[in-house]
């Protein structure tokens, strides 16, 4: 199904982004690709999908992929074409010459049947990811390329993802799975490819286990009392939420996809007004799920000084847009730390990060709490377990 020998894949800004990679997959087989952020994993997927040149890159070697390809990208919204979930799945069915009227059942299978007519820009990241899975399933490709597809998914969503991939493989498909977390894929993949600095390697040293020093609890930086919120005409997203955050404290906000975690952060930022209740926050700053919205500088050094860049393992002099998704998030968090807000709001700060980057980010959050109170919306159970407190949102 896939027979590739990539001698060299490069971008103008990153020569040798991927070198000396060979891959052969037969029907029903899957490979798991592991590696740090920026190690060439996404470049491999681009080379296999035939879009490397359109992304401004060049390829030496040969890539042969038999049959149709479907990509589930790292950013969930990038995988959506239709303006409502029903339309997106219907497009997949219609493109693969199947009956588009079956779209409903695919949405139901990933647990978003009730959102069939919701404009896609109103979906949460997790809901958007579930839609990606429904559309992939509806397209029924021969080859599936998954780029960090488990990021943004709650445990239920991850279960659906693995189940769908297993079903796809058993029907004779082949998959290339890029994921930082190999755990869900044990028993699913037939081989593992580890990349380090653009080339295959036998193994990479494990990431250090991040730790936080206990920080003294300081003055109050945010207080929420009896908060209710809903967008006009929609159901209540937040109901009777109360919360206080002190300097030196890390509060993790947990909850399934669509439970209002990001909405709570936006209310604390002052961007949304509560429908009811009282919200007070001192000098809040937010790093959104899409870190590019935080990064207004053109190059890395516009956002953070050299020592901070090196502390976060980030290159100097690179255009922010050319950074990998993990690098962007680390840069945004580094910049936010430099600006020293009283209240730091982090939306899924570890989603899509490899264990090494994650470790650096988690340690940086620990350092930041010496100066700020921190509220983190996350699906990362490891990060949540390190927080001083957790609050669980669900149905408000």
């Amino acid at each position, binding site marked *: 199904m896939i027979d590739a020998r990539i001698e060299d894949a490069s971008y103008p800004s990153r020569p040798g982004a991927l070198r000396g990679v060979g891959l052969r997959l037969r029907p029903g087989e899957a490979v798991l690709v592991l590696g740090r952020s920026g190690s060439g994993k996404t470049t491999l997927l*681009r080379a296999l*999908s*035939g*879009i490397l040149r*359109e*992304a401004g890159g060049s390829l030496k070697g040969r890539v042969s992929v038999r049959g*149709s*390809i*479907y*990509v*589930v*990208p790292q*950013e969930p*919204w*990038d*995988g*959506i*074409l*239709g*303006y*409502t979930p*029903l*339309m997106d799945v*219907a*497009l997949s*069915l*219609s*493109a*693969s*010459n*199947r*009956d*588009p*009227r079956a779209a409903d059942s695919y949405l139901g299978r990933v647990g978003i049947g009730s959102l*069939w*007519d*919701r*404009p*896609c*820009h109103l979906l949460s990241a997790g809901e958007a990811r579930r839609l990606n899975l429904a559309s992939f399933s509806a*397209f029924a*490709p021969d080859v599936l390329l998954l780029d960090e597809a488990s990021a943004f998914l709650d445990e239920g969503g991850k279960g659906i993802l693995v189940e769908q991939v297993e079903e796809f493989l058993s029907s004779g498909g082949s998959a290339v799975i890029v994921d930082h977390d190999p755990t869900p894929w044990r028993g699913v993949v037939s081989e593992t490819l580890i990349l380090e600095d653009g080339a295959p390697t036998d193994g990479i040293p494990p990431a250090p286990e991040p730790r936080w020093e206990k920080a003294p609890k300081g003055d109050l930086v945010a207080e929420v009392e009896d908060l209710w919120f809903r967008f*006009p*005409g929609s159901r209540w997203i937040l109901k009777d939420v109360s919360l206080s955050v002190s300097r030196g404290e890390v509060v993790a906000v947990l909850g399934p996809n669509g439970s209002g975690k990001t909405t709570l952060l*936006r209310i604390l*930022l*002052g*961007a949304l007004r509560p429908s009811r209740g009282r919200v007070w926050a001192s000098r*809040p*700053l*937010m790093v*959104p799920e*899409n870190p*590019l*919205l*935080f*990064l*207004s500088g053109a190059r890395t050094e516009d956002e953070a000084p050299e020592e901070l860049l090196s502390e976060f393992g980030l290159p100097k002099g690179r255009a922010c*847009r050319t950074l990998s998704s993990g690098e962007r998030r680390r840069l945004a968090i580094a910049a936010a730390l430099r600006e020293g*807000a009283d209240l730091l709001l982090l939306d899924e700060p570890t989603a899509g990060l490899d264990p090494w980057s994650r470790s650096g980010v988690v340690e940086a959050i620990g350092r930041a709490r010496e100066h700020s109170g921190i509220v983190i919306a996350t699906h990362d159970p490891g990060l949540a377990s390190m927080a001083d407190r957790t609050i669980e949102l669900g149905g408000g």
Partner: protein
Amino acid sequence: MGILSALSQTILRSVFLTGERGCRRCPCWAKLPTMAFMVLLPYILGPWGSLASSSAALYLYLITAPEAIPAALLISAMVTTWFSATGALTAQLLGGGAVETGVTIALRTLPLSLAGQAAILCFSPWAAGNILSRLSPTASVYPMLVWRLAPQALSDATLAMEVQAARGRGLKEALSAALAASMDRRDGILWANLPRLRLGARRGLPPPRRSPSCLPLLLALAALTLIGLL
């Protein structure tokens, strides 16, 4: 920047808050004459035409997305105030009747801006896609893509303005961040969806489920026709 962020959020709420429901699902032959009447009546009948046209626009909102009415009214009020105030000022400078000019412009601008928003609200990318699919399967994807990306870009711009304002940065930085995010999304969507973009809707697109009654829209059309004839 807070005003701009609120404005982009208001535009999002006024026209992009709904999927395929209400008058969006009605056929073009019913929607187009309704829109034409809403635009023409203020010119044909003066203030009464304006009242009828504005009422019809609000009625279309009511049957399609009642939750978007406050945002639609806010946008119309802003547009109307801007045009009537500048018109009145110009009339004053030229020695004409400032109040009369301002009121006349307001009576035409208010229904027009409401009708414009109602037209966008009633536009169905699905129906447009199905019409275009007769030309080519790939063309059918584009109306959907526009309706998918326009609110996303507005939503990203809103969030960028909120985040950059909190950082103490200005509009230039917010727009730069939003532009970078949009370019990145364009590349990302192209990459992830290339097979679907190349193949298009080869089997057309199904009518969204739960076909609604078009009776409310036809009633509006009948009322506007009657008012126009009388």
